[in-house]
């Protein structure tokens, strides 16, 4: 008798843990959960993604829910910390038994969390990670939606080619994402016949770039491809101006995309190229449902969504479509749907290859008179890039 009860108990545990199903919850709800950085270094971009998540949940519930189930949302704070994120995903999947997982922010945390979700076979669309090595380990339950790190400098290298630059320097912070972006930039340069005369990484906390800037000059580079975040790209630009070091083009991966970049740097930020996954420009990008999303977001949060918010929204639209196609929350069916579905979201087209990677196309912008203006690819360009950058003495 006891043995039979134990067997039944184990069977229940296995069923409960293995294939979560929405019907087991009170009020016929479906539980969606995730850990995302609400505090710590990633709080700003991740916070914008949380905005989109809340907007989506309310909108779906107003439409009658997901396959008729009202969504109950459980968001936890991973404090921008990998170990915390791993623990929270374990908890969400095994204790809370969520029906669907949302993804964390940043490549580093996603890479770690993917090991947990993979073990429990919980599929998701990763809107917070852009480093392709995540998809090179044979994982089956994680899907990419945003443009990968290797393509962040694609536009800048093309623009360098257009203005006749023949020698470039590729520099970057010594960590996963910038190194991948540097690798991509180098490949694009090779394809376009541009000579990479210097490749250099610097420690994450480097503040003084005097020697590096002189080294770039000494190597004869005409343009600088900088795979940098906020602090380092800002320091590089300030020191370029202070030392009167001039280049025809300067492009940074992350820094210029943040709203406070032109604010803090003022005129020093002018003519700098930056990368964006998406911009709230429906008349230019013309993605389906883009305007409605931007309006709803702006109405609720009093600002236009940036690309972090847009990516999260697109991924949630894909998730919704996949749930509908799978006809439920069975993780295998959902995985199958995410792997095969084609969706035209407000973020752009989603259709993944065998590795689970989408081929999202990003945008290169230039800071002109304090505004980010799209300059590449040509089909989306708002204005022509103003290159080469004028010398510091002539501004």
């Amino acid at each position, binding site marked *: 008798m006891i043995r039979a009860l134990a067997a039944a108990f184990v069977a229940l545990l296995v069923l409960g843990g293995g294939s979560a199903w929405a019907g087991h919850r009170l009020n016929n709800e479906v539980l969606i959960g995730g850990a995302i950085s609400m505090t710590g270094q990633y709080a700003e971009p991740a916070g914008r993604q949380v905005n989109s998540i809340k907007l989506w949940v309310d909108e779906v519930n107003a439409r009658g829910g997901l396959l008729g189930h009202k969504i109950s949302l459980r968001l936890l704070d991973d404090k921008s910390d990998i170990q915390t994120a791993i623990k929270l995903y374990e908890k969400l999947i095994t204790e809370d038994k969520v029906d669907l997982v949302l993804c964390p922010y940043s490549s580093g945390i996603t890479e770690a969390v993917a090991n947990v979700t993979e073990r429990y076979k919980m599929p998701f669309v990763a809107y917070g990670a852009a480093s392709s090595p995540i998809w090179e380990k044979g994982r089956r339950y994680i899907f990419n939606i945003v443009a990968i790190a290797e393509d962040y400098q694609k536009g800048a290298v093309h623009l360098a080619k257009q203005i006749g630059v023949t020698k470039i320097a590729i520099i970057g912070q010594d960590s996963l994402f910038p190194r991948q972006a540097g690798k991509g930039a180098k490949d694009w340069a090779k394809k376009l016949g541009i000579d990479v005369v210097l490749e250099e990484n610097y420690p994450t906390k480097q503040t003084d770039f*005097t020697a590096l800037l002189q*080294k770039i000059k000494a190597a004869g580079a005409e343009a600088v491809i900088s795979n940098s975040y906020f602090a380092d790209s800002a320091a590089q630009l300030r020191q370029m*101006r202070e030392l009167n070091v001039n280049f025809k083009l300067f492009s940074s991966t992350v820094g210029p995309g943040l709203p406070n970049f032109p604010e803090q740097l003022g005129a020093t930020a002018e003519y700098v190229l930056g990368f964006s996954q998406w911009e709230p420009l429906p008349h230019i990008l013309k993605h389906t449902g883009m305007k409605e999303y931007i309006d709803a977001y702006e109405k609720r949060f009093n600002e236009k969504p940036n690309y972090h918010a847009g990516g999260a929204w697109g991924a949630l639209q894909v998730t919704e479509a996949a749930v509908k196609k799978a006809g439920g929350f069975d993780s295998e069916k959902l995985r199958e749907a995410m792997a095969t579905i084609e969706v035209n979201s407000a973020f752009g087209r989603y259709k993944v290859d065998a590795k689970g990677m989408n081929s999202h196309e990003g945008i290169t912008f230039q800071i002109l008179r304090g505004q980010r203006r799209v300059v590449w690819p040509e089909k989306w360009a708002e204005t022509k890039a103003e290159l080469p950058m004028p010398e510091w003495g002539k501004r």
Partner: protein
Amino acid sequence: MERSDVRSFYILAAFLVCAYALPFVIGVQSGTVHATERWFAYLTTVVLSGVLQGGVYAMFAVGLTLIFGVMRIINAAHGEMVMMGAYLTWVCFFYLGLNPLLSMVLTLPIAFLFGMALQKLLLHAVVGQPELTALLVTFGFGLVMIYVAELIFTTDFRTIPFAPATIQISRRIAISQNKLISFVMAVAISAGVYLFLKLSRLGKAIRATALNAEVAMVCGIDVRRIYLITTGLGVALAVAGGALVSIQFGFNPETGIVYTLQAFAIIILGGRGHYVGALIGGLMLAVLESLVSLMIPNGTAMVELAAYALMISVLLIRPGGLMGVKES
């Protein structure tokens, strides 16, 4: 000096000559060194900038060495105090509209009082305890400072746009205005502290306490008061350093650790508890970092490696540092 002491000094000097020649040798081999006028202009810019930087590093390292020399306390929160200086300057600049150099008139007394309070409430308890105790206490205090700063200022990077102009020395050689200003200020402050320690009665009492606290006490020096003043002065030097780095570089609550490590490397190089040694150590470290970055392929990634390799080598060859005397 004893014979073995003299010998270790010469070995260290020989080692340093090799260490500074190494970037050139590697540079020549890998083709990053060119015998052109243009390249020498780049080299001069980099070395000049290293010297300017070194002066500022040295100043806050003097603060660290002072506290260590007098109380045998290794202040692991020194970099966080540099960070505090940067934020105090930032607040003065953006909220009170004060020039970062002028704001020191306000921030240095605050820092001095902060240091005295710290001494009274926390460090008095660990003076005379094993050095590890003080290290742990100050390390913990540094973490508290980081989290408090994150609470107040968030983790966003801040910069202070002050003196961003270029000083063109020749057609190809330029230095930045804020670096030069920082250097001049740092040298002035360090020289002031040095003269104070050498010449004034109080300064002599501080040095006497550093040499031997018990004998100083017997001679009628109020050692506890000396400790208060020393920590106040040490923290003020760190905060002054913070003001000077804040006009050059961006900072956030977590940048302090970089400066703690730099100050450690400098006083190990120069000699613990030795003020002139800290100045020399500061210049040497900054110049080596610049040379490695300029000439070795992917050298910027190796700057920290070079700095700590230098530190470890000094510890192995001459544990007391360049100017230090052998510890008994």
